[in-house]
């Protein structure tokens, strides 16, 4: 019964979406306040309907209602509660319901918090948001109904893929989806602005916090995914340039560019058309990511053939969304009035370069990801594009961006002086030389890569500190005054510094891991000793035991570092009987200097077990850097909230509809 209510709620949501698209859009065209007023309640009703549907699906999972086909295929009565819940979005149908839920949530947020938005803009934004929802609700209802019943119901379910039964991956999809789908709002705002024919700083002040929120979640989501791959797949890799990873990375790159260009629109009323285009591109890349992952075209052409409807349906949505929005852009963008002027060497100029580099970087990832599909379609040749390609294209494009990252924030708006900015960076330059030189001298046979990597990290970090010191006028006014300035800096300033420092920390981690990882693979029996670097590992025992829905072989290794007891590590190898699937649970000892990573493979007590040991310097810096970026996003968001209440803004808001009525 509850599943039917869920299904019914989805159908209802579809029809609410139809009204949500048509009525406010018509009302905005006719300047009819009553019709435009329909937008907010429609968005709320839409969110309510989808929330009911999602709740019904979750209920089916929690109560293990195997008469629902989706639950039977992806759950099991013995599965821990957390994974019953995460199972809801761990499969195709459920994840699509989750997708529209987030979409409706963002529409609802505009309805709830957008009281100060001009009526027509608000109506149009909600209408476009409804249109995206309409497309995906249609997709779910026609091709991926999660509430389909099974008769007779099986006694138990087929279980969730054991690799997905992991806390890191339980939260990875929600974060990622909030990020992906969050960019829909930037898209809706862009479309609405094009229809309105105007973009002003007030528009950017609306778009930026939503983009920032989406970006923050996407960053956290990608990081969680990477972290999961690192400890769960048992290979010790954290980024594979796998197409599915790239599918989430491209919107991140474009979203990062959007974040920066929206600042220029907000502060200087310039780069409007470009920002609109970036909003379109960012969300289109999110849609493409959904298409690539959900259609199965990347993992298996066969899945595509089994259910061509699904892939074609999303491809259709993608084509209409990209084609329609770009057409609208081509028609309306030339009419957007150009805003503030700026010299090439200025903060704006720096942000333009930032955008160009990020866009080109996005393009290289795009080509590397899609070229194999393209070649297969054209010639039938099968190729794969792996890490070496991206190292040779993406990395060189990012390097100038890092150089720029230290200089850009030191340039003033409108017109700057490159020499003045660079002179401020002399301490930073010295620091860079010391770090790079230190690596060159101290690390035996240091190849160029780590010298460059740590050098750039030092340069970026030095730039951030210089910029902060400039802001608080360090050493130029009494120290107490400087500290007072530091405390009262706006959240956005902290946000920028944190995110940029995060970049430096991340580069250190990535450089250390990539260049200095050491690996040891050996077969060991109880009592055997393995030596790698300063570490000695003694395999004490391997025991077999049973978990809630799996069996495991758990090894116990006593580790000493330079002869001093260091850690006891217990890697496991699990077998999930329902899916007959083994998984590796690595044991990782993390420290600021890096990870000691141990995994066990197949084996027996007599023949010994395969033990893999990695010493991975600086890996935690990768996650720490990403988390600093997330923290930066949060700080910046807190700033927005403070400023939303400022009287200056509401005055400008109140003036906006009046100005519009006049034109």
């Amino acid at each position: 019964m509850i599943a039917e209510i869920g299904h019914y709620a989805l159908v209802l949501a579809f029809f609410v979406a139809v009204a949500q698209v048509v009525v406010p859009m018509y009302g905005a065209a006719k300047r009819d306040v009553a019709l435009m007023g329909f937008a907010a309640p429609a968005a709320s009703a839409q969110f309510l309907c989808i929330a009911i549907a999602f709740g019904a699906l979750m209920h089916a999972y929690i109560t293990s209602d195997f008469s629902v086909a989706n639950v039977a295929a992806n759950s099991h009565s013995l599965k821990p509660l957390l994974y019953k819940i995460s199972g809801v979005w761990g499969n195709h149908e459920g994840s699509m319901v989750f997708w529209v839920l987030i979409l409706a949530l963002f529409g609802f947020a505009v309805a709830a918090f957008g009281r100060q938005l001009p009526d027509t803009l608000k109506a149009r934004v909600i209408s476009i948001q409804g249109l995206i929802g309409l497309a995906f609700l249609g997709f779910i209802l026609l091709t991926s109904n999660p509430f389909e019943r099974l008769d007779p119901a099986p006694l138990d379910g087929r279980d969730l893929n054991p690799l997905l039964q992991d806390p890191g991956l339980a939260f990875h999809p929600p974060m990622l989806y909030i990020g992906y789908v969050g960019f829909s709002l930037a898209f809706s705002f862009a479309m609405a602005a094009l229809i309105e024919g105007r973009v002003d700083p007030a528009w950017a002040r609306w778009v930026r916090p939503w983009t920032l929120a989406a970006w923050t979640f996407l960053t956290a989501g990608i990081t969680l995914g990477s972290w999961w791959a690192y400890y769960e797949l048992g290979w010790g890799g954290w980024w594979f340039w796998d197409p599915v990873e790239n599918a989430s990375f491209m919107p991140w790159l474009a979203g990062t560019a959007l974040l920066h260009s929206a600042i220029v629109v907000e502060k200087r009323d310039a780069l409007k058309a470009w920002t609109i285009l970036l909003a379109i591109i960012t969300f289109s890349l999110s849609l493409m990511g959904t298409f690539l992952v959900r259609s199965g075209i990347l993992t298996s052409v066969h899945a595509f053939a089994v259910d061509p409807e699904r892939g074609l349906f999303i491809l259709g949505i993608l084509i209409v969304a990209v084609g329609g929005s770009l057409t609208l852009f081509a028609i309306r963008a030339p009419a957007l009035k150009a805003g503030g002027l700026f010299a090439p060497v200025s903060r704006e100029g720096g942000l333009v370069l930032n955008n160009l580099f990020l866009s080109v970087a996005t393009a290289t990832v795009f080509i590397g990801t899609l070229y194999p599909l393209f070649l297969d379609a054209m010639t039938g040749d099968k190729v794969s594009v792996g890490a070496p390609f991206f190292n040779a294209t993406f990395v060189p494009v990012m390097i100038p961006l890092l150089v720029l990252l230290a200089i850009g924030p030191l340039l003033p708006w409108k017109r700057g002086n490159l020499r003045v900015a660079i002179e401020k960076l002399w301490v930073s330059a010295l620091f860079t030389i010391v770090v790079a030189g230190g690596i060159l001298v101290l690390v035996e046979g240091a190849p160029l890569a780590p010298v460059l990597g740590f050098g750039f990290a030092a340069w970026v970090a030095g730039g951030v500190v210089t910029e902060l010191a400039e802001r608080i006028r360090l050493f130029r006014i009494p120290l107490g005054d400087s500290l007072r300035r530091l405390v009262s800096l706006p959240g956005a300033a902290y946000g920028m510094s944190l995110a940029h420092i995060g970049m430096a920390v991340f580069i250190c981690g990535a450089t250390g891991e990539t260049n200095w990882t050491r690996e040891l693979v050996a077969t060991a029996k109880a009592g055997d000793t393995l030596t790698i670097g300063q570490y000695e590992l003694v395999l004490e025992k391997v025991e077999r035991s049973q978990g809630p829905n799996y069996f495991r072989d758990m090894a116990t290794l006593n580790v000493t570092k330079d002869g001093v007891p260091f850690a006891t590590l217990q890697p496991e190898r699990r077998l999930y009987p329902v899916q007959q699937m083994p998984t590796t649970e690595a044991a990782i000892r993390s420290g600021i200097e890096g990870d000691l990573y141990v995994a066990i493979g197949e084996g027996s007590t007599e023949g010994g077990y395969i033990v893999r040991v990695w010493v991975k310097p600086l890996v935690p810096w990768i996650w720490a850097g990403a988390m600093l970026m997330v923290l930066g996003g949060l700080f910046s968001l807190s700033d927005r909230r403070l400023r939303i209440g400022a009287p200056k803004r509401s005055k400008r808001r109140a003036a906006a509809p009046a100005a519009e009525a006049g034109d």
Partner: protein
Amino acid sequence: MTPKRRRLSIVLIGLVMLGTAAALVLTAFEENLVFFFSPTDLAEKDVGADRRIRIGGMVEDGSWKKYEEGLRSEFIVTDFQNAVKVVYRGSLPDLFREGQGVVAEGKFSGGVFTASEVLAKHDENYMPREVADALKKSGRWKEGETAQ
């Protein structure tokens, strides 16, 4: 600088950067594109001995041999028309099994494929799409047998 000239210079810088990126992409493609071969392709075409390639097919039943206490493996990959011997040093992925699909990356010389990487699968039902296509080509793929 007038807005028009400013826009023009931005577009020019953008084009230069895109051009540089295109050059990077093309060189990288030249060196790093890894082509896929089925065992039949290997038997019919000539592959340079120092070219990195990927092969894929089914692991032949009863062909998996382990040496040096499991650290070195040999197995035969087949598309049921032709077969190729693969040697691999290292630990195989959790889901490596006889009678299932596999993809390996490495070099082919002297009739033996030396793998540097055997690709992990995330899902036991997952059939690498190159393998599925290779098997289809050799006529041994039954539609719908291994659903993704």
